[in-house]
């Protein structure tokens, strides 16, 4: 278990830097996590991130890209624009959640 400092907060992270404690996340932290990977959060980003947070609480696992798309009503294309390259992992990182484990 590793503790790292993001902004002024001390948080627990895994070896790759994903937060491991659901409750250590807050919206200020999300902005700082996003900035670390070159993303400036807009309302559209927030829609996906808030969905991920709520869905994780309900389901106990991080939503896959397809689940975000179908359940939050956000087109796949838009998610790729908002979180370029590896959208599912980037969303999970900013939302302070583990990487999604689902295949699709």
């Amino acid at each position, binding site marked *: 278990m590793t503790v790292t400092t993001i902004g002024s907060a001390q948080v*627990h992270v895994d070896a790759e830097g994903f937060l491991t404690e659901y409750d250590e996340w807050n919206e200020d932290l999300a902005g700082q996590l996003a900035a670390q*990977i070159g993303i400036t959060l807009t309302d559209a980003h927030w829609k996906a991130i808030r969905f991920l947070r709520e869905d994780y609480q309900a389901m106990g696992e991080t939503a896959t890209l397809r689940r975000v798309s179908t359940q939050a009503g956000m087109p*796949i294309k838009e998610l790729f624009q908002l979180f370029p390259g*590896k959208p*599912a992992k*980037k969303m999970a990182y900013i939302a302070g959640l583990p990487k999604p484990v*689902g295949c699709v």
Partner: protein
Amino acid sequence: MTTQTAPSIVPDFGDSVSEGRKLAIICSKGTLDMAYPGLILANAALGEGVETHLFFTFWGFDMITKSRMGDLKFTMLGNTATHMPQGLGGMPGMTAMATHQMRKQIHDVGVPDVPEFLAQIVDSGGHLWACRMSADMMHLDEADLYEAVEGIISAADFIEKTDGAQLLFI
């Protein structure tokens, strides 16, 4: 468990590494069960930022033929992995039943049907190509194929387009 303090750890999303990585998937099968491996791997690769090209050839043409893509079937015949008596697979209605069952199982794990899956792959930036020889053999042209197919191309064209790619034949 020991806790250590580390300077800021930022995941490496490998943005620079994935750029330039390419995957080519040749889909040569037209059964429901054999359509999915290519689709799932293509989708996974795209989600990892890998440029992905799918080439549909021979029976795999059914996956992109409008009149058939939503109606792929699964049969127990010749498939010992169902662990059912082979004679059963040849009984009337068994293919329909096995297909229905597999569709349900796929649906239950939240995986889309073939046309919707292809749409998701295209929306994720994937490229779909149809095999020239298969089109000629089956007397099909662009009008018969799924709209997002970018073209009917020769095997040589595909090899050229996927220069340097990792390749999967399914």
